[in-house]
């Protein structure tokens, strides 16, 4: 219900602003539209600038998660134990295809996994901090040439960054999505969370363009109730 009220409040922000701001060059966005799938499936992000700079408390929580996972106890992970949304940035590791729809007011990420979606606000407005953040947080975006730049913030602290790494509700995720050729998409991510890490850290994920076809009706709870893992476990 809170998220629903938030939706109404956000609509109000647009109304209060009295104007809808369109991106400078919507045509630049067309090329990333399409269906994509992670090129190298993974459960975890691989930092590109050294080890993850954990604070001491976060390191302890991470190691606890590691130990629990090794014993098959996923109670620390609401996605693996309940099918809750993996949220941002973990959705960047989604094992199933996803589709990007580019439209003037919003860019929609449509995931085959459990039929999830995430929208990036392209109107240029700013968000007020919510009472409680959702798993996907709030994402605002703009174009820098043909690179889609997204700032995500106001996340729930109940999600994980990937299969093991915790974060706080202070986390900010900056993303830069750009093509590396017609059929390869790269997402450069920067994780900033002073409550969990001693400095911002970086990672990147690469996707391969897929044929355009309908997504199957994926119902995670059915898979969970059948004894299957909601997300595949891929060893680091």
């Amino acid at each position, binding site marked *: 219900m809170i*998220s629903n009220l938030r939706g109404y409040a956000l*609509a109000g922000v647009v*109304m209060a602003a009295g104007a809808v701001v369109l991106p400078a060059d919507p045509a630049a966005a067309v090329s990333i539209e399409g269906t994509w799938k992670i090129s190298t499936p993974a459960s975890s992000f691989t930092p590109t600038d050294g080890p993850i700079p954990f604070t001491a408390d976060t390191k302890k929580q991470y190691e606890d998660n590691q130990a629990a996972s090794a014993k098959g106890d996923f109670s620390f992970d609401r996605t693996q134990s309940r099918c*809750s949304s993996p949220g941002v940035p973990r959705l960047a590791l989604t094992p199933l295809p996803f*589709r990007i729809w580019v439209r003037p007011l919003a860019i929609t990420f449509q995931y085959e996994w459990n*039929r999830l979606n995430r929208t990036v606000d392209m109107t240029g407005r700013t968000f007020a901090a919510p009472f409680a953040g*959702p798993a996907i947080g709030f994402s605002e975006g703009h174009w820098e040439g043909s690179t889609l730049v997204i700032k995500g913030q106001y996340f729930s602290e109940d999600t994980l960054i990937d299969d093991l790494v915790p974060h706080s509700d202070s986390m900010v995720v900056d993303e830069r999505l750009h093509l590396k050729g017609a059929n390869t998409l790269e997402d450069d991510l920067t994780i900033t969370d002073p409550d969990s890490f001693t400095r911002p850290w970086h990672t990147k994920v690469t996707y391969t363009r897929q044929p355009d076809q309908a997504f199957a009706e994926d119902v995670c709870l059915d898979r969970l109730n059948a004894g299957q893992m909601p997300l595949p476990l891929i060893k680091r």
Partner: protein
Amino acid sequence: MRFALSRLRAVTVGLVMALASTALAQIGPGGPPGGLTPPPVDHSFDDLKPSPNAIGLGGIFPPLATPVPPNAPQPASDPRDLEGAWVHTESLSFLIDKDIDGMRPPYNPRGHKLLAKRLKSIADSKPFLNASSTCHPPGLPWQQDLNFPFLIFQSKNRIDVLYQEYHGLQTIYMNPADAPKTASYMGTSIGHWDGDTLVVVTKGMKNPIWIDVDGTPASANAVITQRIRKVDEGGWSLRIETTLDDPTYYTHPWSWVRDFGWRPEDQIFSEYDCETQVGDKSNNSNAGLVPEPAADDKP
């Protein structure tokens, strides 16, 4: 045009009934000796009243009243381009108890019995579990009728409809050869254009569905036909006429109409994560709802 004629019929029927009521009131209870005798009051549908929660509220979610910003994008001028964000702008009816002509849905005895049982379960504060309460795709038209936005994206051979609630997805196949052969919660939707009206036939549900909050039934064998067109009546809407053909529970097909307003600002979906509660096995995730007795809907 058909809708307008139907509304006219409904109004006409209402006027005739009101005049008849006035005449009976003038006669008085029982009527004068030797005069007209009022017809007996029909109590056969007393068990099909909407659930108490709906009375006086007009539905749980009132329509959004915020106007569309003056410089907001408008729908495409092409009547066959339905892309954008749309929201059911009428109050949500807990019970769809009127058809397009204002008449009672044509329940057969089995449908009547099942709906009455569901309404009684609500009145008894022991409502039955359903797809919505278990965080599963609820099927059409429930998925559309909730007053939350949905997004339409059109491709050459396919229309994807993304719903905020239940993070729902309906795929409309414009090429029947592309459609899956297996049953699904939402069923398989196949579309074609009839002039500027998109006609979508949905069938092949893996389970029976509830078509509204109170539990008006549709079997897994139901065929749901929706005629969808864009209309501008001082503001853009999608007008969807839904026809339910389901001999399991109804004596003949019946139809109703809903309008869904153009809401470009609602492209920014709020998160819907029912799995957080329903998937938590450490709690009683049924939230007081009880399983519906199986195979108990025979007349």
